[in-house]
């Protein structure tokens, strides 16, 4: 495999864009990434587009019609919440394999106010199991994942709420986040309950958004930048057989498998990371991923947030962007956007929220059902 560099990266502030369609959002992000890389669309040899809810609508090709339909290969990727990050990984392999020298990955989604409850659509409602035989909606599934941690280790709702507090404080400093208002523990704990133990401020909002990156081979990258960000590892796993999965989705095993693979490929350990952007669709998800990414020992996730070690300035800053809890979670854009965030930090371009001296960062996404991606980036 060849070394692959990220040379261009950009994203739109996540939020609501009712006046624009998703292709316009994606095209805007793509143009911004091309500009950042110092190239034009005619230099791009392959485009990988991630979009979930319009995965049958050829979003990738429609982006090209907006910015320059050059006739190069375009692939459309969908992989639940890991859609954008899987599109990124396809782009990575296109260059790493030696087949292409300059490729672009774009992630986009337009969700409006649909919420993350999921389900619905088609069929006879008489056969809907929601609220009749337990739950399959996202807040419920991720609530159960957090409650499992409570059962195993005595973790409290207050500890989980502290993750929501951290996300809101970090989000205050990120101009690309949808919500930028800090909240204290009382506000997070007293917000209305969506699915206990997660209250409203422990659940990410859905949003519209787009992000794009330009990847190049090492030789090509030299022509355009003196400060490439290297992709040290790009892991993708699916959920292997475990006893309760998928009655109770196992979001842990595949994340641990991906983390082990990524650390091994990159030749580093979790102690070498300067920052992590992980998939905090709910505060309970961030809690379990502290351990799944080996940022702390087994059962120590509650202690890690109690001691504020995952704040910017702590031992291992997590989601200094404010995470999905502050940024919002436009599904197809999410996995590209968290790569963009890490790139900005490694280039010392992250403004007020900059992680000082960041040299190595990890971006993690999980799509339920399940797919897990982990990218390790370094300078």
């Amino acid at each position, binding site marked *: 495999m060849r070394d692959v560099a990220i040379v261009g990266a950009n994203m739109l502030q996540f939020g609501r864009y009712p006046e624009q369609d998703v292709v316009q959002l994606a095209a805007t992000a793509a143009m911004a990434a091309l500009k950042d890389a110092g190239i034009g669309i005619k230099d791009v040899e392959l485009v990988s587009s991630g979009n979930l809810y319009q995965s049958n609508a050829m979003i990738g090709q429609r982006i090209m019609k907006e910015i320059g339909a050059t006739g190069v290969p375009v692939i459309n990727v969908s992989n639940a919440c890991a859609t954008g990050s899987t599109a990124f990984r396809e782009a990575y392999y296109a260059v790493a394999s030696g087949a292409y020298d300059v490729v672009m990955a774009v992630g986009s989604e337009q969700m409006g106010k649909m919420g993350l409850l999921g389900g619905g659509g088609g069929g*006879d*409602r008489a056969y809907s199991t929601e609220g009749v*035989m337990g739950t399959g909606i996202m807040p*419920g599934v991720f*609530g159960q994942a957090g409650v499992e941690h409570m059962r195993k280790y005595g973790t409290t709702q207050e500890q989980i709420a502290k993750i929501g507090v951290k996300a809101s404080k970090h989000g205050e400093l990120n101009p690309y986040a949808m919500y930028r208002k800090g909240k204290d523990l009382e506000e997070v704990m007293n917000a209305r309950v969506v699915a206990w133990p997660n209250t409203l401020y422990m659940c990410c909002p859905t949003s519209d958004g787009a992000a794009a990156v330009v990847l190049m081979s090492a030789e090509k990258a030299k022509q355009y930048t003196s400060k490439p960000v290297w992709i040290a590892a790009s892991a993708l796993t699916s959920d292997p057989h475990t006893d309760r999965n998928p009655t109770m989705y196992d979001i842990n095993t595949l994340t641990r498998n991906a983390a082990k693979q990524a650390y091994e490929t990159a030749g580093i350990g979790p102690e070498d990371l300067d920052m992590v952007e992980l998939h905090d669709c709910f505060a309970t998800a961030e809690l379990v991923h502290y351990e799944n990414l080996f940022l702390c020992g087994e059962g120590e996730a509650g202690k890690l947030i109690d001691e504020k070690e995952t704040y910017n300035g702590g031992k291992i800053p997590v989601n200094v962007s404010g995470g999905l809890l502050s940024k919002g979670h436009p599904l197809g854009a999410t996995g590209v956007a968290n790569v963009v965030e890490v790139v900005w930090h490694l280039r010392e371009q992250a403004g007020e929220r900059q992680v000082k001296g960041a040299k190595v960062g990890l971006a993690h996404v999980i799509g339920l059902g399940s797919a897990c991606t982990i990218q390790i980036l370094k300078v």
Partner: protein
Amino acid sequence: MTQEAVAEKKTNPIVSFMKVPENYPAEDAYFWGMKCSACGSKFLGQRLACGKCGETEKLEEVKYGPDGELYVFAVIHQSMPGVEVPFVAGIIDLDDGVSVRGNVYGLDPEKPDANWFGKRVKMYSEVISQDREGNDVVAAKFKVQE
């Protein structure tokens, strides 16, 4: 009216891994699935091969339930339109060695508590609605055993 036009009303399970006996409700509905006799794994509903070891020949159909214990839960306060909230959404480990999702009754949803873990529960079934063709739809629920 021809005889074919008078469709016989059926009693259908809400999910494919439940079965409703012909003499329901005299005989209760139950969960079923496949057991792999090569590795011992158990699954809900039909499988073409064992999801754990890939065995394709030694799969047998087995019946599960009704007893088990509450592994974990979430309390759902916000759901899709028409769903009554709050409710306790449990993951139930059946004594037979498989897990199922279920609403758990007999617990106060406003007071989630660590002592709910491991509570003994028993499955029962109910006709919960009628589908578009007028067939009864049967779902499984769980009640805490004191």
